[in-house]
């Protein structure tokens, strides 16, 4: 399709109406940090582009009852510096702070990170570990989907052509909870994740693991929950030897999962995961309050 | 003596223009009535090909599509051997070989025309492994051996040297191909002055030689070509070979209008040379005290599809493979070899960068075997004033290596 029309939207209604009208012909752009490259490489060829980056109704971090809600067009820099996200969930801010570079964080949005569907999207493992829910809107409807069910395939999310991701939400932190995030990349800035891990833990006073959720990036077609490792840890006391065992277990799982992948993945990742996972878990434990 | 510059902190002359953004790099030149050029490059490493430009020519806004037959003078260039074609005539030797140059009224139209050119490849076997290439079963350049250079160094008696050695270490090291990635991708503008002088404005490391190469390809005397070198956004050796200079000159002369081309980062990767990857087979012997007695090395430098500076680079590797150490018995054979890989040429160090990876590892391994420190073994063998290198040069001036190693070792607490 030839690009015919570009619209800088100001209101959410406007975006939803335009999508209802144009459906497959239209695509939304937020920060553009994935979009512009795909457009120039002709991987996408919309007829209509709708810019949502300056729609205030999509740009917020707020408390709503027991939940924290983050608008889809919220930029990484805003998340990184948010005073609303608690210290216990600093892992989410860390994840946002690890994206690309200052420039990319000033443009890129959490909604774009999710909807682009990259396996290496850095905020997604953190949101998965938080048990986040995607709030989706269209002209006549609002629906909620657990984020872990939002992915269809690499680069594909469960959105109808007239829908946008409106926000993500997750339960605010409670005493005993913590989130840790660790990214492994070739260098500190501007490096796509080779592995990223986010660990959410809930412990009682004796570091008994009451609950645990692990989100991983770059270890599957899209970011996923690592439920086998979660099951292994749940109910156990998180002594060093238990953590060590869980780490080995995680390595074994990856050996099987990545068996058919090229050497850099199948040989490296099952080994590297051990350090990354341990660090993420320890980070989570260190921020439990 | 009182110097104007030495020992003083001076502000560079081009600094002001650069911090204010006023410095003009070739992509910053915009001229009235300017056309835009874009290069079609081969997508396969070794093939005969035919072109059909008829569809592309019909696109509105396309002014001219240049192919090999449009090169007015010699269809060749190259800093040592004229082994590059300005535009390949019938055979491509690597991915990225230029095969056509489209000139259009805008960059967008030029890009569209590039896609509309039909290229039919008849692929032929290619060789990517330089060791394989040395057998000459697949020739990269017709009628020419792939081995384009053999540097031979012989000093003392290598057999005796190893016979006297108490420890011998032998290994093979592979270094990788490296891209310069200078920050400013290739760009240039060409136009013709009233008296017929062809002006090419491009960021280059070698303007005086570019002038000759442009003149030969254009079939005009050198004084009819003027090369202007505006601000150069990094080079590191990657701008020593011709890239777009001749294409632009041809286009400007044919159309009578200024023609500009700017490479994307991706095209820049295809267009210019790389650092030679080398396979370094090396054997080093020393006595119990850690004195080096013998070194034997075979170096195979993969120069890819074109020679560029392969000979000079490979020679430098052959000389520097001894490291800055006195060794009485040395035998080195260094080869530069054509393959169908990206072509290699100058890059920061020019052959002297690759070999220390091997030489210095050998020193560390020897030290470990002899149970002496890596600092000590280097100090024992280091060049000093008056030392003779393996290729026979006596170092008569300052050779502050021992000082340097000592200071560095002290600074990191190894001494």
């Amino acid at each position, binding site marked *: 399709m030839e690009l015919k*029309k570009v*619209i800088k939207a100001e209101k959410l209604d406007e975006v939803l109406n335009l999508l209802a009208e144009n459906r497959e012909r239209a695509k939304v752009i937020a920060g553009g940090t994935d979009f*512009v*490259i795909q457009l*120039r490489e002709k991987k996408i060829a919309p007829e209509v582009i709708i810019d949502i980056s300056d729609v205030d109704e999509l740009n917020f971090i707020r408390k709503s009852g027991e939940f924290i809600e983050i608008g889809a067009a919220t930029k990484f820099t805003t998340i990184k510096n948010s005073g609303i996200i608690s210290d216990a969930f600093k892992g989410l801010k860390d994840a946002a702070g690890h994206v690309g570079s200052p420039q990319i964080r000033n443009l890129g949005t959490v909604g774009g990170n999710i909807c682009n569907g990259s396996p290496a999207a850095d905020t997604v493992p953190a949101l998965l570990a938080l048990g986040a829910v995607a709030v989706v809107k269209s002209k006549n409807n609002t629906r909620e989907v657990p984020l872990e069910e939002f992915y269809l395939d690499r680069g594909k999310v469960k959105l109808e052509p007239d829908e946008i991701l409106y926000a993500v939400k997750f339960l605010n932190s409670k005493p005993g909870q913590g989130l840790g995030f660790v990214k492994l990349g070739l260098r*500190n800035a501007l490096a796509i994740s080779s592995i990223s891990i986010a660990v959410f833990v809930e412990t009682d006073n004796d570091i008994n693991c009451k609950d645990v959720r692990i989100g991983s990036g770059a270890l599957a077609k899209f970011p996923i929950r690592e439920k086998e490792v979660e099951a292994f840890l749940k109910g156990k006391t998180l002594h060093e030897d238990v953590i060590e065992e869980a780490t080995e277990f995680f390595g074994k799982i990856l050996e099987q999962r990545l068996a058919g992948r090229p050497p850099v993945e199948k040989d490296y990742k099952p080994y590297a995961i051990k350090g990354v996972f341990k660090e993420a878990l320890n980070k989570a434990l260190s921020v439990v309050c | 003596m009182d110097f104007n510059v030495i020992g003083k902190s001076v502000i560079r002359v081009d600094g002001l223009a650069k*911090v204010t953004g006023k410095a003009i790099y070739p*992509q*910053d030149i915009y001229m009235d009535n300017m056309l835009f050029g874009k290069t079609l490059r081969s997508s396969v490493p070794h093939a005969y090909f035919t072109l059909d430009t008829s569809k592309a020519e019909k696109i509105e806004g396309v002014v001219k599509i240049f192919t090999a037959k449009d090169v007015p003078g010699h269809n060749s260039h190259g800093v040592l051997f004229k082994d590059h074609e300005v535009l390949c005539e019938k055979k491509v030797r690597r991915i990225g070989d230029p095969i056509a140059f489209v000139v259009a009224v805008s960059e967008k139209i030029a890009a569209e025309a590039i896609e509309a050119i039909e290229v039919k490849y008849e692929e032929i076997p290619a060789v990517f492994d330089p060791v394989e290439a040395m057998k000459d079963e697949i020739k990269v350049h017709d009628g020419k051996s792939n081995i384009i250079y053999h540097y031979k160094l012989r000093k003392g008696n290598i057999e005796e040297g190893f016979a006297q050695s108490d420890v011998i270490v032998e290994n093979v090291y592979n270094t990788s191909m490296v891209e310069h990635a200078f920050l400013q991708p290739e760009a240039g503008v060409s136009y013709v002055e009233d008296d017929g002088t062809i002006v090419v404005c491009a960021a280059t490391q070698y303007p005086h030689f570019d002038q000759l190469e442009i003149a030969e390809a254009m079939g005009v005397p050198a004084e009819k070509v003027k090369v202007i070198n505006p*601000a150069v956004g990094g080079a590191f050796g990657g701008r020593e070979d011709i890239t777009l200079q001749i294409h632009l000159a041809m286009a400007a002369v044919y159309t009578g209008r200024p023609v500009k081309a700017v490479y994307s980062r991706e095209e820049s990767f295809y267009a210019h040379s790389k650092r030679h990857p080398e396979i370094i087979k090396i054997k080093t012997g020393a006595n119990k005290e850690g004195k080096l007695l013998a070194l034997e090395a075979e170096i195979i430098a993969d120069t890819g599809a074109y020679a560029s500076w392969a000979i000079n680079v490979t020679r430098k590797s052959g000389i520097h493979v001894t490291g800055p150490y006195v060794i009485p018995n040395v035998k080195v054979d260094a080869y530069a070899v054509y393959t169908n890989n990206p072509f290699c040429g100058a890059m920061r160090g020019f052959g002297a960068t690759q070999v220390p990876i091997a030489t210095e590892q050998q020193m560390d391994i020897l030290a470990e075997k002899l149970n002496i420190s890596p600092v000590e073994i280097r100090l024992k063998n280091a060049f000093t004033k008056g030392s003779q290198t393996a290729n026979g040069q006596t170092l008569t001036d300052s050779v502050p290596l021992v000082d340097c190693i000592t200071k560095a070792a002290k600074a990191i607490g190894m001494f």
Partner: protein
Amino acid sequence: MKTISLKVNGKPYTVEVEEDMRLLDLLRDKLGFTGVKEGCAEGECGACSVIMDGNLVTSCLVMAFQADGKEIITIEGLQSEDGTLHPIQQAFLDEGAVQCGFCTPAMVLAAKALLDKNPNPTDEQIKEGISGNLCRCTGYAKIVSAVKKAAEYLNQGGK
């Protein structure tokens, strides 16, 4: 074509832009701010960085139409009318932080974006502030000292 209005270096512009044009193309090809450089076109090198509404962004990843209503600062906006250099530019000169210069305009802007928000950055913060800008001439040490010196100049009220 679409008509947009924006401010560049304090001056308002109303321009027609093509739908698929990037902010980078608008600034360079239409408005003549050639101090904005293109090094990669995919957000990796930072040479195209400009300050948009106070934040450093890569102009190769912003569509021109998205810049409607925005305030942009490019390197051309830093030097005073009378030719006095901005203290950051002066610091880059004084510290020898310029080599080929292709990264320089954007480096200076990265320093500005940082120092506008944080007048006394640590070395680590400076390194993070310029982490989205590659200098292939690899003059990073001097660039970091230049940013420190710039902070000094600015804190003394300019040089």
